[in-house]
């Protein structure tokens, strides 16, 4: 038994990355950024307002959070719906009391179907991030480029129609891209993307159609990742956010401003038994008076001015 010769050939074995999408760079050797009022940490809260149709249309995989049982999967559909009806309003209440901003990756269908929810979002000046038409519209390797361009176009046009603003940011449903996604997003005037999890700060990516910035929209402290996928409880959730904040804050004093990103899923953190954890952890963080609460777009604007 042996493997084909090509298996022991390494065509990309040279300095830097094995692709052309971005350059390698050491986080600790970069130009420092200064946040407004010299705060050490920018707090970037994202609240996902996703629409999962009862009828998943299967590509190579389903988006995490999508229907699980045979049709009709009422248990999953309604659990997700709980987030958009109830959970998100609990999150809003917590953020309102503390005066915190948020950005929301929003399915265009959420904006279209739930005008009362959209109004609550717009009343708070939350930033809206493109997040596909709905959770059926994922991008994946090998998909038709025209179909993908249409998906992106449809989502951006629908969001602009309902919100009055074209999103500057994009988060691909299921955090999944095809080989053309970044190029297509750049072509559609999207200036930042939330899919990549390799950094704690923004960095520039390049595509054949121009530059796009990667924002550190992480999975590490994601409520769904910690409490659903990994099965942790809300005490552990809080403890880890505070530990991250402490470290980022100390780095912020030595290396320039850092970003604490928290991604919230209304059907997870918005449950009655969990919401207290969000309130408690945000109260502790804000008590330091060393935090700048900002949207993704605002963070990028300041980051671009770094010296």
């Amino acid at each position, binding site marked *: 038994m042996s*493997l084909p010769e090509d298996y022991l050939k390494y065509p990309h074995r040279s300095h830097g990355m094995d692709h052309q999408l971005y350059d390698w760079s050491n986080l600790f050797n970069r130009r420092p950024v200064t946040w407004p009022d010299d705060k050490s940490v920018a707090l970037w809260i994202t609240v996902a307002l996703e629409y999962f149709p009862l009828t998943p249309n299967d590509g190579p995989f389903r988006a995490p959070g999508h229907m699980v049982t045979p049709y009709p999967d009422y248990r999953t559909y309604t659990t997700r719906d709980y987030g958009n009806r109830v959970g998100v309003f609990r999150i809003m209440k917590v953020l309102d009391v503390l005066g915190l901003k948020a950005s929301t990756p929003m399915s265009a269908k959420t904006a279209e179907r739930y005008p009362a929810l959209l109004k609550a979002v717009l009343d708070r000046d939350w930033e809206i991030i493109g997040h596909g038409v709905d959770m059926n519209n994922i991008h994946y390797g090998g998909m038709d480029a025209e179909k993908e361009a249409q998906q992106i176009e449809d989502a951006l046009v629908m969001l602009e129609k309902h919100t009055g603003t074209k999103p500057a940011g994009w988060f691909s449903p299921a955090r999944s891209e095809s080989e053309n996604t970044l190029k297509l997003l750049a072509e559609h005037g999207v200036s930042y993307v939330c899919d990549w999890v390799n950094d704690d700060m923004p960095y520039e990516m390049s595509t054949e159609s121009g530059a796009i910035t990667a924002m550190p929209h992480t999975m590490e402290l994601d409520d769904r990742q910690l409490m659903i996928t990994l099965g942790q409880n809300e005490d552990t959730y809080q403890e880890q956010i505070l530990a991250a904040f402490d470290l980022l804050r100390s780095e912020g004093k030595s290396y320039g401003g850092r970003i604490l990103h928290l991604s919230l899923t209304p059907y997870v953190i918005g449950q009655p038994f969990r919401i207290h954890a969000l309130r408690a952890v945000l109260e502790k963080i804000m008590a330091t008076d060393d935090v700048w609460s900002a949207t993704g777009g605002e963070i990028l604007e300041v980051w671009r001015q770094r010296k």
Partner: protein
Amino acid sequence: MKYDPGLYDYWPYQNRPKIVWPGAKKVAFWVAPNIEFYELNPPANPQRKSWPRPYPDITPYSYRDHGNRVGHWRLMEMMDEFGVRGSISLSVAMCQHHPEIIEACAARKWEFFSHGIYNTRYIYGMDRAQEQSILTDSIKTVEKATGQRIRGYLAPALTHTEHTIDLLAENDFWYSCDLFQDDQPQPLKTKNGKKLVSMPYSLEVNDHYAFNVYGQSARQYADLLKRQFDTLLEEGETSGTVMCIPLHAYLIGRAHRMGPFREVLDYITGHKDDVWVTTAAEIAEFYLNTCYDDALKSIEAAQKEAS
């Protein structure tokens, strides 16, 4: 296929010759950062898929890339603080992709050992000559980049063949981290009779298992490492033990995990009279020179007694 790997005889964890580490220490403590490169688009291995989604599967790829951009630098600085040199489980193509990391580690006199070319090139299905070429490539690549002759091995992604252990002996390696049968080093059986040591590298305390298999929090992981150490220290009174902490910068180097991990390094290195803070190659060298022959006699005696 073999019913039993045939790499060592059963040798119970009792009445073994007493190991006393240099300086009369009871626990030999080493830290193994896995410094890996994963390819975005590796060739397919017939027995194992690299990424679950079609190319480009950017989420798991960028998740691991975080270690080389961010996590490594945090971990290295923390290990410096406690005077711990790493024994690096290295995807040797890192010498080409990110020589900046290799130079920083070499300047600290960290040890390098081979963890294959890339962690997306598996050994399953290779013939003997192909597997030999991986070892030759590893030895030459690290020697050219650092001047060090590598003496240890951990197969890339823990993928082996029946030839792996014999090839290590033929290529003058001192130790293998591939086998998990013990908390003390011990001789391995090799076809050519050359000495080769099985080096304890516990999977159960690997950060990958803790975080992504068992879903533990940073605090739970820190606590388990302290308990692991306490037991090995107590037993090290009877005969010296080895404690390895196998790490991945893309896991332990996240902002929320560094703080709790710092307490672990502080705790273990604080036991100055009992702990030999060292590298895998130094443990192997000491064991080969001082303990190996006694161990062989003890194993033979245990076999005779059993038969």
